[in-house]
């Protein structure tokens, strides 16, 4: 059974899924801003675009799920606020992206227990794993330990 079929069966409140969708849409915009900043050099630029593609896939399945539930999926904002005044180098952009990915790991980790159905929790954990890989790769790219601890929180 698909992610959204389970969500439909559980009548999961769509506002929480919309929150996750909103965060994914913001992540897409953040990577777009990074890609257009002129600060990212190959192969880092390709990496950022790849990660952005993953977030687009996450957003698409969340959007479909909210729709399946009869809700109205949130749209991307016309404008997002990012701390661009602090982003002067490639490393700045990567550290900022890493902070967002770390936040995403925590957000999905905090969402998994909210899903009563184990298969739905598994789907959220699958996204969590992808975000964690992004976080680790970004940390490694700026010379930080890619996996700083045995557990995420």
């Amino acid at each position: 059974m698909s992610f959204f079929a389970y969500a439909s069966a559980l009548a999961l409140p769509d506002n929480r899924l919309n929150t996750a969708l909103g965060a994914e849409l913001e992540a897409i915009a953040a990577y777009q801003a990074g890609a257009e900043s002129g600060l990212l050099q190959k192969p880092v630029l390709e990496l950022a675009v790849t990660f952005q593609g993953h977030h687009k896939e996450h957003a698409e399945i969340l959007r479909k799920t909210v729709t399946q539930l009869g809700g109205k999926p949130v749209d991307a904002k016309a404008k997002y606020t990012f701390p661009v005044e602090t982003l002067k180098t490639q490393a700045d952009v990567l550290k900022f992206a890493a902070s967002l990915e770390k936040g995403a790991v925590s957000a999905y980790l905090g969402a998994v227990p909210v899903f009563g159905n184990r298969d739905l929790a598994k789907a959220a954990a699958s996204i969590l794993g992808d975000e964690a890989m992004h976080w680790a790769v970004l940390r490694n790219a700026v010379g930080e330990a890619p996996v700083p601890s045995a557990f995420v929180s």
Partner: protein
Amino acid sequence: MKSEKGVRPLFPPGGIWGLTPFLLAPNIAFGAGDPKAGEQVYSRCLACHAIDYDRTGPHHCGLIGRKAGSVPGFQYSEAMKKSGIVWNAKTLDQFIRDPLKTVPGTAMGYDGVKDPKERADLIAYLVAAGPCKKQ
């Protein structure tokens, strides 16, 4: 001074007087948490929140003493708008421990920070963020 992550110094621009709303709020265990440790806990919030500006979640500067669901222009859940909560150390502790139990219907689909020390540190960090800078 401001770091790359938009982190504020320990005390707000107004100095310790910027903490007045917090100090006057009831049921507050002032000094129980470590704001520096709280900054690390706050990194968990960065998918949706920032101190100085709205994101998927509302900004956190000026949080202490603010009525829940009251940031102008931010689209809250009906549950949050009707919660009647005013944010102080006690209400934050309750909400952060279990958001969905404290405000059923909140859009913040998060299980909560279960460790009391981590919550105290996080609240200390939010208090230290102080009031919002004038735009």
